[in-house]
């Protein structure tokens, strides 16, 4: 290893080329700062390590928000989509979300191209080994090859790679994804920098070859026709659409699983870390819901030019022999060939309560974190954080106001506030039930909520301003009962304005209540609590509240109010002390 100081000074260095890293790097570069993306392997840019699917309830809203702000995920999804479903069509507009299967290689290739064509962005294949610091700030990255990159800010998007450990049955081996080495050096670097790390677990099912699947025994799930684009800027989906297939487990499956449980790393006590409750392994489902005779399985193509199928619902870390028996027990899969075995992975995450709303870390200014390293799960959650972290890293270099989205503005705001305020005890997934202003945060109005910000920031093409402005005016006109003016050429169409206005009208009563509540909250969102606020000194606070505040170190008075166990009386007291301090500093 020959140490080498790279001669360039970067503004933003992104570590990791996953869904978070890609959005972070693109956003920073688009804001005009000199950006570097470091990845172990340029051929795994935007890899869909688990299900090649984007969207779902809550997640679909995130993708629309990313897109409205000028992110990439929606466009790439539209480009690579092979089967699309609008979910919850029988329910209200607030919970309607798209979900799409993608061709996973097309997705990766398209994202890699987007990165390569992005001015201000340099891509380098090397493993980050340590965060460099100077005077208590991040100032660059040292790589495993010994190169040192100077950078004003660093965005860490390490995914599941920090001390990643893969489990199949009782066998374990290091890996950040199957067949890819983990990064253990970075974990050490973070610990040395004083970060609190924890351990989480997630898993993935086996992949099957199509020729062994008897589709006549499965139910056919037709894709939507015509498929609806995720992105505001995609006129039409041109890919052909493929069906997915549904089959189900049975008593024989449950029996095979029970017979193999003693070899399960989850049930033998080998894995102690927590997995996401929403993505349970099949062994978890069978153990926790023994009275459910059958669990649905979705067979989803992994691409156009491949015979590989993803078995959605069979996530498992049981040994390979048991996996084979499980598959054999399922109608339609009796003769299926397993191409890749399912596995579980344990990895380090950094406690997200160490983050600020900008996703800059509090222990080390200049270092931002996004994605699974913050304890979340899902490509959409990762991409959303990556976008916000990349934007804020660039804005801080430019000396501009940071982008902080409130809970009433975006699911991005809900997610980040949840992470920052409460920390996590299982991998965090977005749900619409987490949003108290759910009726305001819809896929149809993501643009109205956020595209103004995207234009202001400079992430959206300024040429879109006219079309968007006219669209905003048209929706306002329709809501006021006026006849809207004709819309100019551009992505925003009159039919969409009418649909959104109609939704707003049905929800008007409820949205009005939500708005009032949010308005009240805003005042408290803006009351920042200084980092050195001395809670133990406030003897007037009840013990429980004092401990919780000391532990959570809320950033704002509103956030303090969201901590369970902190009462309005406590908030009042804090408010007085904050005002006093503010007055005292004048």
């Amino acid at each position, binding site marked *: 290893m020959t140490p080498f100081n790279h001669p360039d000074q970067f503004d933003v260095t992104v570590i990791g080329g996953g869904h978070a890293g890609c959005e972070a790097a693109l956003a920073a570069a688009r804001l005009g700062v000199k950006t570097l993306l470091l990845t172990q392997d340029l051929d795994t840019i935007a890899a869909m390590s688990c299900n090649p699917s984007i969207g779902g309830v809550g997640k679909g809203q995130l993708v629309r928000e990313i897109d409205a702000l000028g992110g990439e995920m929606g466009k790439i999804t539209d480009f690579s989509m092979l089967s699309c479903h609008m979910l919850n069509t029988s*329910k209200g507009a607030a919970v309607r979300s798209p979900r799409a299967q993608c061709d996973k290689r097309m997705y990766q290739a398209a994202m890699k191209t987007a990165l390569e064509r992005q001015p201000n962005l340099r891509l380098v294949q090397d493993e980050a080994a340590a965060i460099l610091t100077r005077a208590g700030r991040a100032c660059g990255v040292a790589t495993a090859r010994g190169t040192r990159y100077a950078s004003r800010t660093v965005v860490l998007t390490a995914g599941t790679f920090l001390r990643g450990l893969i489990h199949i049955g009782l066998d374990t081996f290091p890996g950040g994804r199957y067949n890819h080495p983990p990064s253990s050096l970075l974990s050490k670097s973070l610990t040395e920098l004083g970060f609190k790390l924890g351990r989480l677990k997630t898993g993935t099912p086996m992949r099957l070859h199509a020729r062994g699947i008897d589709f006549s025994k499965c139910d056919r799930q037709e894709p939507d026709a015509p498929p609806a684009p995720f992105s505001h800027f995609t006129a039409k989906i041109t890919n052909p659409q493929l069906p997915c297939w549904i089959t189900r487990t049975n008593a024989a499956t449950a029996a095979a699983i029970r017979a193999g449980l003693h070899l399960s790393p989850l049930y033998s006590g080998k894995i102690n870390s927590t997995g996401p409750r929403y993505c349970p392994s099949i062994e978890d489902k069978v153990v926790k819901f023994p009275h459910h005779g059958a669990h649905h399985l979705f067979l989803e193509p992994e691409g156009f030019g491949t015979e590989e199928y993803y078995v959605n619902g069979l996530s498992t870390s049981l040994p390979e022999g048991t996996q084979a028996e499980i598959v054999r027990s399922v109608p339609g899969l009796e003769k299926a060939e397993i191409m890749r075995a399912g596995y579980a992975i344990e990895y380090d995450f950094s406690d997200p309560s160490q983050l600020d709303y900008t996703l800059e870390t509090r222990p080390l200014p200049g270092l931002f974190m996004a994605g699974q390293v913050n304890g979340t799960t899902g490509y959409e959650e990762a991409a959303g954080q990556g976008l916000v972290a990349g934007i804020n890293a660039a804005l801080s270099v430019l000396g501009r106001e940071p982008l902080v989205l409130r809970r009433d503005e975006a699911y991005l705001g809900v997610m980040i506030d949840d992470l920052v305020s409460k920390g996590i005890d299982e991998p965090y997934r977005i749900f619409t039930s987490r949003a108290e202003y759910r009726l305001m945060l819809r896929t149809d109005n993501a643009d109205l909520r956020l595209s103004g910000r995207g234009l202001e920031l400079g992430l959206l093409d300024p040429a879109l301003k006219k079309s968007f402005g006219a669209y905003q005016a048209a929706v306002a006109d329709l809501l006021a009962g006026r006849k809207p003016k004709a819309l100019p050429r551009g992505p925003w169409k009159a039919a969409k304005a009418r649909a959104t206005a109609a939704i707003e009208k049905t929800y008007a009563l409820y949205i009005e209540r939500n708005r009032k509540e949010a308005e*009240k909250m805003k005042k408290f969102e803006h009351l920042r609590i200084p980092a050195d606020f001395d809670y133990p000194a406030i003897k007037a606070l009840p013990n429980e509240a004092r401990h919780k505040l000391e532990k959570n170190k809320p950033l704002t008075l509103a956030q303090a109010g969201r901590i369970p166990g902190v009462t*309005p009386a406590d908030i009042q007291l804090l408010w007085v002390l904050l005002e006093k301090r503010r007055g005292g500093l004048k």
Partner: protein
Amino acid sequence: MKLPETSDTIVAQATPPGAGALAVIRLSGPQAFGAAASFLSPVPAEPVHRAARMLAVKDGARLVDRAVAVFYRGPASYTGQDTVEISCHGSPYIIRTIMNLALRAGARPAGPGEFTLRAFLNGKLDLVQAEAVGELIAAGSAEAHRAAITQVEGGVSERVRGIKTALVSLLAELEARLDDSYEEIPALKTRDFARRAAAARASTLELAKGFEAGRGIKEGLKVVITGAPNSGKSSLLNALLGYDRAMVSRQAGTTRDTLEAELELHGFTVIFTDTAGLNARAASRLEREGMSRAAKAIARADAVILVSDASIKETASDRRSEKEAARLPAGARLIRVLNKADLPLKRSRRGSLKISARTGAGLPALRTLLVAGQKKVFRDGAQAVVTSARHFAALSAAAGELGALRALLERKEPPAELAAERLRAALSELSSILGETTPEEVLADIFRHFCVGK
């Protein structure tokens, strides 16, 4: 989430509770003048700033008191907002009535230190004085905390928690389906759901009714009447109250439950609890249950009246009662009463008060003895109104949301996301009693009951 609100109208007693013959009740906020005008007469349309006026306090047509009111126009007031200060007579009854009239006129009971907080935020106090605000809030919180503990014992929060659990589980049913990306969960059974929602609403309304007009929280001197079966506990209670609150019969063991009744004695609020007789040999399950409730009531009493029948010799049940009554908390008083003193005496005991519930003999002495040296009741009177007014407001609002939920469920295709809004709002109303319901609690319920996700 409930955060401090500074733009509504609040009311509270401004003088220290129990301070003396006069009390000051303060109203502050944009509706202060209007609220005061609804029960003070005659109030001119444009009251003169800072002029004191003698006015009648009226509850409808009934004259409650004659009081002096001063109207301050904001910002030239203590809080910086429109403010009315009413000096009335210091009886807990009058204070409570005026508070209730203000609440009925749309004011909200002020939290601890809230007037001072407004004064501070409106620039009426300097930094040094602000220190005092903190102390005031802290002291008030301690008081509120104490009140909360009393309610926990009183079972209020247990009942509210029961309602909350029901609402969380209803909400989870909806949220699980709204967040179901694979549309796997079977459709909601609307009729069953509506039935459960209606039951939750009924309990909420019932509980709210108990808090109406500031009577819900049984704050005051807690006196438990206990003794062997048929010693005349219920007759004594009735004699004290002057009407038949407890069912009295000559058959021993009539009172299997505890009965509560409230009485103003010499200006103090006294809450009597009549317990089941403490039988030496508890027979039925029902009887045992009644007796365990009696034991619980004794454990939180301020005074215990141990009643024995003077017309018979001491029994095993008497000895058992004596033992139970001795378990009263530290600082509480034990008052021994020999009842049926109008009959030939079969026993006597030094320090016992001889009475007859039947003839009324000895009752005036007992009344005086009960409130002698009691400061506690006075202190708690106003606090009780405030706390219970808050509970009433919270529970009624929650019931209102559940009423709107019922209307939604009657639609042909009930909109689940709107039904969820109503349940969320109902839970948010209850948060002032029990604290926040976090989305994590709802998610936990979902994952406990539904096998969701892939």
